[in-house]
C-alpha cells in the first residue's frame, strides 16, 4: 500500500496513529507536503463528507476522521508554511448574536478545514459587526452563519446588511445554515448560499470562492 493510500484509509477509519505514521513515512520518502495534503488528506475528508451526506457516516465517525486528519496536518503545517503553500481560502464562521449553540457550527468548521480552507472560528453569540470586521481584517472570502433558533435568525439578515454597508458584499460572500434555516430564507435576506449540513457547507464554500 502506498503512503497516500494509507493516509486516505487512516483518515476514513479515524485511525490517528495510522495517519501520523504514514504521513511521517511519506515525508521521509520525499513526498511533498502539499501532495500529501491535496492527494490524500483532502480527498479523504471529501469522502468522509460524502459518506456523512448519505447517512453512512454520522457525527462520531466524522469526528474521529477529522481528528485523524488534524493529526496528520499538524505534521505537514510547518512544511506547508515553509514552502509557501497557502490554504485555498479563508472562511469566518460563528453562531449568530443571541445564540449559544455550537455543534453545527463546529461540524462546518471541521469539514471546511478538511477541504483545505483556513477557518477563523468566532465562537458563539457573534455580532454582525464582528463577522464583517473579522472577514475584512483576515482577508476572508466567505462568512458562515449558524443559528439554532428562529428568534436569532434576524441576526443573519443584520449581518448581510452590515456586509452590504461595508461595500464588500460580493467580494465577501455569506452562507447560512442551522435548524430553522432554509434556502428560502437565504434568498429573502440576500445571503449567497444555504447549506443543509456540514458536508454541504464545505462544497458551498468551494462554489462561492470559485465564483
Amino acid at each position, binding site marked *: 500500500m502506498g503512503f497516500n493510500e494509507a493516509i486516505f484509509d487512516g483518515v476514513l477509519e479515524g485511525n490517528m496513529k495510522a495517519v501520523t505514521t504514514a504521513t511521517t513515512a511519506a515525508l521521509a520518502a520525499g513526498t511533498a507536503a502539499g501532495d500529501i495534503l491535496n492527494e490524500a488528506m483532502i480527498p479523504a475528508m471529501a469522502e468522509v463528507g460524502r459518506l456523512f451526506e448519505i*447517512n453512512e457516516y454520522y*457525527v*462520531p465517525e466524522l*469526528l474521529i476522521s477529522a481528528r485523524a486528519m488534524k493529526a496528520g496536518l499538524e505534521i505537514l503545517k510547518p512544511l506547508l508554511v515553509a514552502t509557501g503553500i497557502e490554504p485555498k481560502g479563508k472562511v469566518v464562521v460563528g453562531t449568530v448574536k443571541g445564540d*449559544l449553540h455550537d455543534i453545527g457550527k463546529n461540524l462546518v468548521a471541521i469539514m471546511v478545514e478538511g477541504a483545505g480552507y483556513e477557518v477563523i472560528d468566532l465562537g458563539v453569540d457573534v455580532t454582525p459587526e464582528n463577522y464583517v470586521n473579522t472577514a475584512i481584517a483576515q482577508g476572508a472570502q466567505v462568512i458562515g452563519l449558524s443559528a439554532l433558533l428562529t428568534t436569532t435568525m434576524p441576526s443573519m439578515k443584520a449581518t448581510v446588511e452590515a456586509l452590504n454597508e461595508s461595500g464588500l458584499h460580493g467580494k465577501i460572500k455569506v452562507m447560512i445554515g442551522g435548524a430553522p434555516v432554509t434556502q428560502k430564507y437565504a434568498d429573502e435576506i440576500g445571503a449567497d448560499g444555504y447549506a443543509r449540513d456540514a458536508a454541504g457547507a464545505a462544497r458551498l464554500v468551494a462554489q462561492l470562492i470559485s465564483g
Partner: protein
Amino acid sequence: MIKDRLTTRERMRRMFAHQDADRVPVVDAPWASTIERWKHEGLPENGDYEAYLGMDRVRLIMADNSPRFPEDVIEETEAYIVHKSRWGAIKKDWKHAASTPQHLDFVVKDRDSWEKAKERMQPDPARIPWDMLRTHYKGWREAGDWISAGFWFGFEVTYSHMIGVPFFIAMAEDPEWVKDIVTTMLDLSIALYDMVWEAGYTFDQVNWWNDMGYKGTSFMSPKMYRELFKPADRKAAEWAHRHGCVVHYHSCGNVSQLVPDLIDAGVDMLNPLEVKAGMDPLALKATYGKSLAFHGGLNAMCYEPPEAMWAEMQRVIPVMMSDGGYVAATDHSIPDSVSLKQYQRFVELAKEIGRY
C-alpha cells in the same frame, strides 16, 4: 366551550391505549422567556400557565441521579449566568432569552474522571424530593393529574451535560465505557424510583429525555444506537411496564430512522416530532400509529402568522388523533414570539379540533 368529561389522567390513559376520549390532551411547554413575556400580558405572577389556559397537567417527580457535583455560580451579569451544574457541566445560560446553553467545560473528561463521578452516584433517599411529594402528591391524585417519573440517562444527558464532544469519540472508540456510563445512570434512576414507588408514590408514566437527532438525521447510526443505547432504553421500558406505567420518550431532531428500534425497545409515546428537523407526524402516524402514540408535531415555525398555525392544526390534529394515541403540542418549546392571547387561541383550537 364544551366542558371536559374526563380528567387528564383518564384522557392520557386512553391516548396511550389508542382509544378515543372526550378530546385530545394538550400538554405543552413554553421557554422561560415566554413565561416572562406572558406575565406582562396577564399571566398570574406564579406563572401557572396550565391552570390559566385550561391545559392538561402532567406532574413530574424528578429524583436526582447526577454525580451531585457542588453547584456554583462562576459569573453573573444582567444578561447571562455562567455556572457549574451538578452533572459537572460549566455552562453559560441567557437569563432573559430562550436558548440552549453554551457548554464551556466539563468535570468528566475521561475514564479516570468518570470513575470519580461514578463513586458519587450512589442510591440515597436524599436524592428524592420527599417534601414535594408529601405536600403535593395527594392533591395531584385527587385532581386527576397525570404523574410522570423522570429518568435521565443515555446519549443526550451524557453528551450535553456531562462530557461534551469527547463522548462522540468514546461512542466510536470505547463502547464499553459508554455502556458503563449509561447503565450506571439508569441503574441509579431505577434504584431511586424503586424507593419512590415502595413509599406509595406511584405514577402513571416514566419519561426520559434523549435528544438523538438534529436537522435531517440522528447523531448516531441506528447500528450504534442499538449497540450503545438501546439495551438501556429497553431495560428502562421493561421496568416501567412491570410497574404498570407507560413510557414517554423525548427526542428532538430527526430521529425517524430510530423509530422502529424505539418501538422495539418498548417506547409507548414519542415527543416532540420536530418538523423543522424533518420529522413528518402524519407519515409517522400512518406507519407506526398502531404501535406508537405521539406527542407534539405542531410546527413552531407556523406561529407566524397565527393563521398559519391554525391551518397547520387543522391539517395535523384530525389525522394524529384518529384511534387515540395523540397529545397536542408545539413540536418543541413555545417561543417567546408567541403572545399569551395567541397561545390561548392555540389551546382553544386544539380542544375544538381535537374533540372526539
